């Protein structure tokens, strides 16, 4: 399933580069880049780590696309 990703906006709002966020989350810049481009859906632990370092909720970072079944 494709997620709606808000990592880029939140990261930029915090004044962080991809490299800064990668360092804080202890992953590679490439991984942050692929998450932001929706190429890669992160694991629960990485999603929670990103939320923690960006000081937001996981729901602020990732969103399920709207479907009529909701």
């Amino acid at each position, binding site marked *: 399933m494709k997620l709606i990703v808000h990592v880029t906006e939140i990261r930029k709002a915090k004044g962080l580069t991809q490299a800064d966020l*990668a*360092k804080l989350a*202890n992953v*590679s810049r*490439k991984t942050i*880049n692929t998450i932001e*481009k929706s190429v890669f859906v992160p*694991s629960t632990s*990485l999603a929670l780590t990103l939320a923690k370092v960006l000081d937001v909720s996981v729901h602020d970072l990732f969103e399920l696309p709207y479907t009529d079944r909701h």
Partner: protein
Amino acid sequence: MPTSDSLSTFHLIMFAITGLTRLAYVLKTIAWLRPDPFPFWIPGILDRIIAAPIFALAAAAGRKSAKQAFDEGHIMGKRRGEVHAFWIALMLNAIFGVFMATGAVALPTAFVRWAPSRGRIIYCCSTIMMQ
């Protein structure tokens, strides 16, 4: 001191070298219709040789950078490359089956159909495209 970025780039270059060697082996085999266009052990030994500089660079970068470079994003890319390569190798199996049935290719030559199964070239291409 090497960073996680330089480590993953170096890793990608090393994989590209081994992947291209395998590709060269396959293409030469098909072009020359012989199973040993160059010594068969070269691609295999190259896989082992590249481990040394990757390990040395990872050691120089430190544990934290190495963990960052080989994180879950890296594992996902590697798995994706292997999955695509498996299907490509399976497709080549069918193609080489036809070649062998028509007598165009001998059995020893047809063994190269499994050469892409390591998926290194595909891994390199998909990683570069994702950037």
